[in-house]
Structure formats: C-alpha cells, structure tokens
C-alpha cells in the first residue's frame, strides 16, 4: 500500500449564510483532495469556486458563520497523523432533506475555541500559508527582519536572539531578496510588491513547515515579477522538498509548478489528477468539459476562432447559492448529448476514477 498522503481532505463542507437571501452559500460542498509528501498540488478555479475557502477551512481560519460543517482533514505531521477538524460532529447539528442541508445548528463559540487549540501546534509549525497581496499580509509597523525572527522562534523557542537573527538572514538570502542586509531592517512599506512577496515566503518558510499553502501568490504583481516569484517557488520546491498546495486562477502559474492539479467549480472538485493529463488537452484523455473549456478560453493564438473570436464558456460563474440539483456545470456545458441530458440536469455526478490517479466528476465517464 502506498504511504498515506501528506494532507487528505475528505467530504469537506464549508457553508456561509447570506442574510440578504436567507440561504446558504455552498462555498465548499463536498471537497475531496489529497496531496502526497513532496508533491505540489495546484488548485485552479474561478472566483467563488471555493479554492481559497477550502484551504482556509484546513487552516481553521474561517471566521464567518456557520463555517465548516462536516468532513475530515488528516495531516501526516512530524509526530504522526493529526485530524485538523476533530469532533466536528459534536458541535454541529445538521438537518438534511433530499441530500442537501437545510438547517444548521452550530455552537460556533465553543467550536472556535476548540479549533484554535487544535491548530495552535499546526499553524506555522506544520503548515504555513502565503497570501495574495503580501503588502497587506505583512505587519506594516515592524521590520521585515523582526517578523521573520518571530517565525524562527515560533519553530524553535529556545533559539538565541543571535542565531534566530542569523537564520532569518539566511531565509532572506534564500528567497533572493537583493541586498538582504539592508532589507532586514526595512519596513514592508518600503519594499516593492515583489519584494514583499519574497519576504512573505521567507516568513512562511522560516518556521520550517512541511506543507506550504500559497493562495494566489502572484496575483496582482507585474508580469515580470510574477515570473520571478514562480521561479523562486520552483527552486524552493526542488531544493527543500517541501509539499506545496498552490491556489491560482492563472493556469500558466499552475502548470509551471504543479505535479498534480485539482480543478474546482461551484464549490466542488470536478477533476483531480496528474498535471500533464489535465493541463494538456489530449484527445485520448477523458477530461471534464469544464477543464477543456477553461483551457481553451485562455488568450492564446491557438484558441482564436477563424472569425477572430476567442473560444469562451457561455453563461456566468455560478454564485453557489442556488445550486442545481444535477451537475454544477450543466448550464454552461456543451459536451452532453440528448441522451445524457436528463441525467446531467437531475442527478449529481460523483468524482470517479478514470485511471488510478485521475478522477473526474462527469456523467460522460460514469454510469
């Protein structure tokens, strides 16, 4: 048997509540994901597909209510396997009707205390996270160096001031900030966006986590800076052998870094498998129609139709409040035929294996 995955997410549900529409926002609706040790998993999806919320749920950083409702997240930590949302069923009462949740009663205050206790030994130490907009994520009133020293000490509280400083300097050099000696005492406001993102990466790595979650690490940066951040992550990945989960809407970033790819749509994973099978459209690979459509709407010469138009997916990105009772993508899909249509509209497809490590959620490929 193959070793247990580094992080395993099973049937995760995270809902929010729209007080305007008095309905649930099904942000994460039964997500199954796994990432093996040393591997990079890229999660692609459009806005509202639930990719960031999935990772925030894993980190216990969901603030809005009701939040995480059910599921199981297992991390293989340095000290063995840990459940990251333990005993969730003790805090939540769910009322189901027709396979969907209609009412939730959750003891959110106790749950938050409970999850904070659980995550205290995980955040920073086992899993680190870097965010989009690094300028906002760094504390503007403390120097970059001090913030990294803090992370070094989080990992090893017995570290002396001097050696923690040395380690912090090492990480600044490691992320290739030029002139690290001077940047050490700089405030985040004095650094450019690209520099800030490097500092963020240094901070995230300084506590020596085994898993790094990068949430849109290049979004909002200039193209040339993006390229250099991607390159940095690439180098760190090979040099440190760290497990990485990379969230992005930018498929070129995902394809440059990922070993495995998960495609999310409307709060669900619709396809999960090796990067080469998903990101290169080949005729013999049974891809999800959404993946194919998404790839062909990237502005690129080969996606231009004879009339000068780009290939596009009709319709709007779903808001995950009114979820269809069948497949989530059915309204925008053009792959099904008349025979399949009733099935696609009325029944939810499952995520099934096409090959041993490639899973797709589509009625085209299952009975």
């Amino acid at each position, binding site marked *: 048997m193959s070793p247990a995955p580094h992080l395993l997410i099973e049937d995760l549900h995270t809902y929010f509540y729209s*007080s305007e529409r008095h*309905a649930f926002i099904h942000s994460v609706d039964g997500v199954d994901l796994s990432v093996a040790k040393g591997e990079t998993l890229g999660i692609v999806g459009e806005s509202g597909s639930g990719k960031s919320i999935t990772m925030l749920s894993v980190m216990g950083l969901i603030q809005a*209510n*009701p939040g995480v409702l059910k599921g199981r997240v297992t991390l293989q930590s340095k000290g063995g396997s840990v459940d990251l949302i333990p005993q969730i069923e003790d805090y939540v009462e769910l009322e189901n009707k027709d396979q969907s949740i209609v009412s*939730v*009663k959750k003891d959110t205050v106790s749950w938050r205390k409970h999850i904070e206790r659980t995550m205290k030994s995980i955040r920073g130490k086992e899993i680190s996270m870097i965010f989009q907009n690094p300028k906002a994520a760094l504390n503007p009133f403390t120097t970059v160096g001090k913030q990294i020293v803090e992370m070094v000490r989080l990992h090893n509280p017995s570290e002396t001031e001097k050696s923690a400083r040395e380690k912090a300097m090492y990480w600044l050099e490691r992320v290739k900030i030029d002139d690290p000696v001077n940047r050490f005492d700089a405030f985040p406001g004095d650094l450019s966006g690209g520099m800030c993102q490097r500092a963020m990466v240094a901070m995230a790595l300084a506590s020596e986590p085994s898993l790094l979650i990068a949430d849109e690490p290049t979004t909002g940066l200039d193209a040339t800076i993006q390229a250099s951040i991607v390159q940095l992550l690439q180098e760190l990945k090979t040099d440190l052998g760290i497990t990485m989960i990379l969230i992005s809407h930018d498929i070129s970033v995902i394809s440059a870094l990922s070993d495995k790819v998960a495609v999310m749509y409307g709060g669900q994973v619709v396809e999960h498998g090796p990067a080469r099978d998903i990101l290169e459209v080949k005729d013999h690979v049974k891809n999800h129609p959404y993946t194919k459509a998404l790839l062909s709407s990237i502005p690129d010469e080969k996606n231009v139709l004879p009339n000068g138009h780009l290939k596009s997916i009709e319709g709007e990105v779903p808001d995950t409040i009114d979820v269809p009772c069948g497949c989530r993508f059915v309204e925008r899909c053009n792959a099904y035929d008349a025979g399949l249509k009733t099935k696609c509209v009325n029944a939810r497809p499952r995520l099934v294996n096409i090959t041993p490590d490639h899973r797709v959620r589509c009625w085209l490929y299952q009975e």
Partner: protein
Amino acid sequence: MLVRSHYVHVNDPQLTEAKGLLAKLRRYDRLDVIYLVYGLMVVSAVVLSYFLGAFNLLPFDPEEMDLEAMMAPVFSNGHILGTDFMGRDLLSRLILGIQAYFLPGLLAITIALTIGSTLGVLAGYYGRRWDTGVTYFNNLLDSFPRLVLILLVVAAFKPNIYYIMMVVGLTNVPNIAALIKNKILFLKQKNFIESAIALGIPAPAIIFRHILWYNCRAVLVIQATLGMGEAILMETSLSYLGFGVQEPTPSWGNMVQAGSNYLLQGDFWPSTAPALFILLTILGFYLLGDALNNILEGKKSI
C-alpha cells in the same frame, strides 16, 4: 449586544421574495427593528406634541396656577401627570416645552447639514486648496471648546436659544463635512466620479444626484436624527443652568431645574417627569439614528 453561542441558520430563500413592510423588516436584526419602531414613535410623538403646543391645544393653560392643587399627584383633578409646585399642569408644560427645542433644533440640523455638506463637497469633490481650507476650518472649530463658545455667544448677545442652536449647528459642521468628504473620496477611489465626468454628466448633477442624493442621503438622515438628539441635550442642559429658555416659558431643562428645589422635601415628581421625558426622547433619537445606520447602510449584525 448579546453574545450568542449557538447560531441557527435555515435555508429559506422565500423570505427574500417577501413583500410588504413587515416582511421586509423581518430581514433585519430584531434589535434594530425595535429601535427603529421606538425611535419613530418618539419622533412622531414629538412632532405631534409640537403642533399641539403651537395651536395651543393643551389640556390646561400651562401658566395657570391652581393653588388648590400644588404638587398634585398623577391623575388628580384631571391633571394626568399632576401639577408642579405652583399648581401648573405638568403635561401641558411638558408639551409646551417641546417648543423650546423643536424649531431651534431644526435650525441647528439645517445649519450643520447645509454648511457641512457644502464644505464636504468642496473638500472632497474639488479638493486641492478647498481641501486644505476646509481642513483648517474644521480643525479650528474642533479645537474650540463648544461650551465656551456657547457661553461667549450668550454673554455677547442674550440667552436666546436660537443663537445657541446656531452655535450647536456650527460646531457640528466639521463632523458632517468630514463624513461627506470621506464618502466622496471613497467614491473617487472607485473611479465612480471620474466615470460620471467622462460620460459628460454635468457637475451639479453629479454632486446633487449621484453624490448627495444616492450616496449620502442615508448619512444625512442619520446625522439629522443624531443632531436632533444632541440639540435637545444641549437645550435642556443650558436651560437647566439658566442660560437657555427663561421662566415662565416652560422648557424641559428649566422644569427639571425648578423642580429640583423641592427634591429634598420629597416632591420628586415635578423634576423627575421632565427628566424622564428628556431621557426617553434623546434615547429615541439616538436609537433611531443607530437603527437607520444599520438598516440603510446595510451593516447587519450576524
């Protein structure tokens, strides 16, 4: 606010389609709705009472002394709220007392809103030198203790409540100017104003329709209710101190003051009744402002 431990969420999209006032109110936090209803009741009672007083439709002549019934208790001789130390009908005096702050309060609000939004628009929309000028003006007004300013006015002219309310209105100007300016800066940041200019919408239409009417009306209404509460507070405190409305014209402030002389004798009612009215009325205006803020500006709890 109460801290709720258990949150219950129910999927009920039908609620959104609900028509009618009551159904719509259900969408907001229950406390806000209670505040809103209470505040509206207070406001309508005040307005109604103002007109009762203005047309002299009072149960008794407020200045007629009934020496037979001094310090009469509640519900005696037809005096619903009793009488004061001179046998004057308390209810009539309380209703007439509204005259003391109603129009002056409106004056204060009008001054604050008009000058405040004008300065806010100048600073936010035209910016540059206007902004610098308005900021200096605001700082100047802010750094002046309000009470000292009022006492100066009282000393320079005479203790006329309209003068005092002008000062109250004027000292509120910086507050409103800053609110409007920040709102405009926020809209500017979103290219909202530039896009209107680019489309060729004339400046007055942008300022009055897009900025003030569509985007600041909620702020202005809220500030008006809060301003009225403040005006009442100012008037009553000054009348209590003897700088505001003078006897024998009744005002809630001077009624509390006059009644308080008899507190030690155990006759607490003639001063407590107007004090209660002050409390409940000001609370009404403030809670209304608060509720409107939450409802109109869409800040919902949960």
